[in-house]
């Protein structure tokens, strides 16, 4: 059975990617592997109370990723698509591509822009990294891709 890897962080484009991934898994009779990567960006120095703040960030990210994975899995099950979830910690691009290689994914589905963090604001961050390193075809999905409206307005909204 083919595997489609969906990488999601719960951002608007990732939610759209989730819909597309489910649709393709349904069409291709593939199983869906939903991957969430816990990734916390913190300044690389210590200060008083730093440890606590860091731990809060880590546990916050963990809760967030778990919820995002549960929501995506729920959506897949509603569409009768078989799915598994994987929660990993580490570099987002490397983790996604490594799992895709291990599981011999037929394709990777990602949203174009993720949540938060300066590097994720830039188009060319996670989605571009995956595009250049992936061992298989990559489907990049923008937010509100399914609404055919004026392209200009939509494009601007997605970039900001």
């Amino acid at each position, binding site marked *: 059975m083919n595997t489609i890897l969906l990488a999601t962080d719960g951002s608007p484009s990732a939610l759209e990617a989730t819909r597309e991934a489910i649709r393709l898994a349904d069409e291709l009779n593939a199983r869906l592997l939903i991957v969430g990567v816990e990734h916390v960006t913190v300044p690389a120095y210590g200060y008083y109370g730093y440890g606590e703040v860091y731990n809060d960030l880590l546990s916050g990210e963990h809760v967030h990723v778990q919820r995002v994975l549960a929501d995506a899995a729920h959506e897949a099950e509603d569409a009768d698509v078989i799915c598994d979830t994987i929660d990993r910690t580490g570099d987002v691009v490397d983790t996604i591509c490594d799992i895709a290689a291990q599981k011999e994914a037929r394709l990777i589905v990602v949203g174009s822009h993720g949540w938060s963090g300066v590097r994720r604001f830039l188009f060319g961050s996670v989605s571009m990294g995956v595009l250049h390193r*992936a061992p298989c075809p990559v489907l990049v*999905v923008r937010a509100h*891709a399914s609404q*055919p409206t004026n392209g200009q307005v*939509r494009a601007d909204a997605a970039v900001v």
Partner: protein
Amino acid sequence: MAQPLQRILVAVDDSPSCQPALKEAIALAKASGAELVLAHVTSILEHRIADGGRGPHRVPDVASTPLGPACSRVESAGVRWSTELLLGYPPKQLALVADDRDVDLIVVGSRNLKGLKRAALGSTSNVLLKESSRPVLVVSSPERAIAAA
């Protein structure tokens, strides 16, 4: 319930990176019963370079472009198809025709240029990702898949 795919646009040119993309598009169209829209973007500049600007610059017919062999390949795969022969800047034209034909998915090959070449030449897939709001499937050349494995 998920909506089935209706139309898939695939960008066709004469580069080797186009073949894996076409193969992937055919597989998706076969599995979903979607129609394949084969699109090729030609540029007036190509003609000028080819004949040194002497002309005449004839509008090419579909069969003489890379769409010709692509059509026969798709036909033999038993997939519904149509063609779009366009003139202009490839990523922009592909994005426009994707909207015009209301496709569910755009499939493009990627040449996988590295470093300086990538920066200098740009890439249709990268620009298309910015130009189009529709889902874009980027299919890399098999060389890279082997190298990454």
